[in-house]
């Protein structure tokens, strides 16, 4: 208890610095991947992508980021055994943040496709095992989370497969592809607004003192979807229709209809990312702030202060501006095969999956889900060639990241403990 009273401020400052470091890494990699698709399709420029990211990342974190933050903060470990030693949890959370951030740096330098989510979960579990004891880890919850890492990319893949098939049925494989594209495009944009807002609003806005009923949520989501659909219609109504063109030549025009539509999926990706990945950095930060603020209350009953979400958002934006823009350019250049119509399906599928996971409080990897969604397009025979070695690499780094993050967290935990006592 005395340690917290003496060093409380220093601990909070450290947590803020480590949290910024961690979210910076998230922004530099993860978010850049998510936004790169729209950049590559030519829907938005890098500058516009950064602008969209700033707005929607914050919105995602503030409106829908609470559930995952709770999970990271107190959902996967049970600190009851150390009620009389709250400083252990503070050191642990600081160590976890630092371990995850450092592991992210190492992996990035080596070019390994690791997930920020996996790093932080591995780190927290690693600390809990040595700091509190293996029984403090809520293994049932961990199994759920790990299971969601396998399931979520598959769900993303299935949704994008269905979306790709629907675009074929309704638009591409008809006698008048362009006419149908213009007819159905507002509906697809409606879907973007509808799904994201419905998942977010459905019993999810308690922190804003906004508790909508089922009917109310659906009604509000329809209104929001209709609004986005209308804006989408404004964007695409000017795409010129050459009705006499050969069907084949109309495909290029169909892609032109989908290009502005990817602006909406870019927004939804940033929102989804904000709702899930910001938590990786700020969950531990929130835990430290709560323990120190309450004078050593490890059970953390205090609600999540909005300013912590803002720090998380700021870190991510910083990462995106300093390094992420380069990643976006690289991704954008490399994925020209993902034409707007296919990219739209992949992004909508990925964003929906991530938002659903966020709502359930499951920390998932946006990048992996997007990879799953792209594989879904590939399985619909919509892409010329997909390098499956990437999937193998992901699985390998997935398996390596959990123990690596854990071991580093153990190391930092003992170092911090030694420093402060």
């Amino acid at each position, binding site marked *: 208890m005395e340690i917290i009273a003496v060093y409380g401020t220093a601990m909070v400052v450290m947590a803020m610095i480590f949290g910024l470091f961690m979210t910076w890494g998230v922004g*530099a*990699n993860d978010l*850049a*991947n998510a936004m*790169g*698709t729209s950049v590559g399709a030519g829907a938005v420029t890098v500058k516009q992508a950064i602008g969209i990211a700033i707005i929607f990342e914050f919105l995602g974190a503030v409106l829908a980021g609470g559930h995952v933050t709770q999970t990271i903060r107190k959902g996967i470990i049970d600190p009851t055994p150390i009620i009389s030693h709250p400083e252990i949890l503070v050191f642990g959370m600081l160590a976890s943040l630092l371990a995850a951030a450092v592991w992210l*740096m190492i*992996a*990035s*330098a*080596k*070019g*390994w*496709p*690791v997930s920020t989510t996996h790093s932080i979960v591995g780190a927290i579990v690693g600390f809990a095992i040595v700091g509190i004891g293996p029984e403090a880890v809520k293994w049932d919850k961990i199994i759920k989370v790990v299971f969601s890492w396998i399931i979520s990319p598959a769900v993303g893949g299935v949704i994008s497969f269905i979306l*790709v*098939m629907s675009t*074929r049925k309704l638009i*591409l*494989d*008809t*006698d008048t592809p362009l006419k149908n594209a213009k007819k159905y495009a507002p509906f697809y944009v409606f879907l973007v607004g509808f799904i994201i807002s419905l998942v977010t609003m459905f019993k999810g806005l308690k922190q804003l003192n906004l508790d909508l009923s089922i009917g109310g949520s659906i009604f509000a989501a329809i209104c929001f979807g209709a609004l986005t659909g209308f804006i989408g219609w404004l964007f695409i109504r000017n795409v010129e229709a050459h009705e006499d063109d050969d*069907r*084949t030549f109309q*495909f290029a025009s169909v892609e032109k209809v989908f290009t502005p539509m990817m602006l909406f999926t870019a927004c939804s990706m940033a929102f989804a990312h904000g709702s899930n990945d910001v938590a990786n950095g700020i969950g531990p930060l929130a835990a430290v702030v709560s323990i120190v603020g309450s004078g050593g209350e490890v059970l953390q009953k205090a609600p999540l202060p909005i300013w912590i979400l803002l720090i998380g958002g700021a870190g991510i934006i910083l990462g995106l501006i300093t*390094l992420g823009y*380069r*990643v976006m350019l*690289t*991704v954008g250049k*490399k*994925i020209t*095969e*993902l*034409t707007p*119509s296919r990219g739209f399906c992949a992004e909508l599928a990925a964003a929906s999956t991530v938002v659903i996971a966020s709502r359930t409080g499951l920390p998932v990897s946006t*990048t*992996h889900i*997007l*990879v799953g969604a*792209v*594989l879904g397009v*590939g399985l*619909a*025979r*919509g*892409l*010329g*060639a*997909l*390098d*499956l*070695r*990437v*999937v*193998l*690499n*992901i699985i390998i780094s997935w398996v390596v990241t959990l123990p690596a993050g854990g071991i580093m967290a153990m190391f930092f935990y003992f170092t911090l403990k030694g420093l402060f006592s």
Partner: protein
Amino acid sequence: MKTTSPFANLLRQSPFKPVQQHMRVVSRCVEEIPALFDAMIKKDQKQIDALAAKIGELESEADQIKNVFRLHMPKRVLFAVARRDLLALIQQQDIIADTAEKIGQIVTQRDMEVPESIEEHLLNLVQRTTDICSQAAAMIEQLDELLAVGFGGKQSDLVSEMITKVKRDEHNIDFLIGDLNRALFSIEDQLKPVSVMFWYKLIDLIGEISNQAENMGDRLMLFIAR
């Protein structure tokens, strides 16, 4: 800091682009053949040499594209169509270019005189062969559109019609070759025996082009088969 984006590496260049690029070069090879035979009729040796050289250059260009393509076909890549079929397709396209080159070589290495009685038949055959080759190329150009609709639906019906047309034309070309062989046989005694031998060889080679165009159609049929 390197890119850890697994996403960027996931999407490889579509294999259809190099296949189409290759076929365009192959087409240009074959398109020189009618002019080559015109020059033979006019006995313009300079023109013959120039055209044969051009065919040779185009054939090397096609070879280069094929080699690069084959190097970039690793096994653990999920292609929209079977890897085996893609490799076979480009092989068939390449045989067309090789055949055009062989024709060019024979007519430069030997001063082949075109017997007047087969002139018309020969020019007709060569023209029809060029036509079938451009039809095959048009078929290959449809690969992007096929990909857009997942190798099904109306687009595959369209390609399926193109394939049927190629097959029908190949059948007709077989008859033309039969007629030409017959015409050649009737004047055999008036020609030098070795010349006759090479004329049969040339006709065979010209026939090989339409055969390969048909094979390409068969291969494409596998792409759209459900």
